[in-house]
């Protein structure tokens, strides 16, 4: 009756056991082989997804009285149209107005990073006084709900993009948050304010990268 190691339970013979060197080595080798395979199967990368928006998006008119309080939560929601990779079971909804949500279908704690390329504002005579990027928690089952979507994070600037930015500024925003896997969805929003008011601020490429941090 062989003994086993205390941690991984690999078999070994006692001095009093009948001599069977090939058999003992085979049993040890097979135990190690199976154990290493099981360990390897349990090591997987953290679930991750990235979505990208490639078509120009223009913010709402800057005539809105309170730039931080959209009349409807989806007024400022940025559309995404390309899936770069997705091992996290995250659903990108339609880029149509009133959709545009990024929904993690599995509950857990997530880390999300959003980036937006903001070019120089080109409308002559207008000065940019504010530009902001926010991530909010929308409702996947009711994307056009008028209930304000809670803000998860934001970043804002009041200095216009210019040649000091090499004519493009990358707004970046990261949040860590729990998503329930039933209704919670990421809503990435861009808004701007100008003097005088203009029809909106058009931005370029943007991404949202989502990592699932917990296993359940």
């Amino acid at each position: 009756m062989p003994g086993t190691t205390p941690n991984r339970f690999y078999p070994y013979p006692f001095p009093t056991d009948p001599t069977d060197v090939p058999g003992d080595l085979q049993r040890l080798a097979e135990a190690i082989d199976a154990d290493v395979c099981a360990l390897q199967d349990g090591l997987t990368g953290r679930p991750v997804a990235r979505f990208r928006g490639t078509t120009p998006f223009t913010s709402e008119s800057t005539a809105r009285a309170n730039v931080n309080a959209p009349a409807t939560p989806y007024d400022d929601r940025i559309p995404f149209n390309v899936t770069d990779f997705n091992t996290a079971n995250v659903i990108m909804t339609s880029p149509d107005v009133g959709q545009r949500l990024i929904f993690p279908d599995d509950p857990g704690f997530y880390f999300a990073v959003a980036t937006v390329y903001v070019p120089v504002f080109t409308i002559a005579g207008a000065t940019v006084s504010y530009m902001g990027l926010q991530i909010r928690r929308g409702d996947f089952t009711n994307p056009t709900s008028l209930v304000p979507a809670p803000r998860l994070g934001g970043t804002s600037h009041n200095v216009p993009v210019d040649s000091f930015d090499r004519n493009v500024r990358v707004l970046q925003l990261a949040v860590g948050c729990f998503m329930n896997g039933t209704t919670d969805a990421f809503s990435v929003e861009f808004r701007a304010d100008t003097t005088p008011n203009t029809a909106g601020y058009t931005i370029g490429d943007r991404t949202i990268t989502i990592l699932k941090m917990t296993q359940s």
Partner: protein
Amino acid sequence: MFATFATEEYDNAAMANLGVNNDRLTFTETGIYLVTAEVNFSSNGNATVNGRSLILVANLFGNLAHDSRRGAQNMDTEMTTTALYRVITVGDFIRVEVRQESGAALNISARSFSATKVAD
């Protein structure tokens, strides 16, 4: 001054104890953590605007990450920062420090703060 927090949204490692210290996350395991914080500075209309700063402070004095920018007279200023922090000693903690130079009182409204372990 350090931002305070009122609601614990998710905590599977007992890092927050808002009844005892509502301004920090205290690490209960060693390892490398991904830390993020965001605050929303309200505007106060003061003609002197100057800067706003958001700082992640490790333990008593460690400046872990620092973001600063010019604020806005009549608009909120939103800031976020992210850092990796290596916890060597259980009991290490991090806080969110906010500063502003408008020359008058200025509130912060919405804010959040998270840490998640990414490696041993």
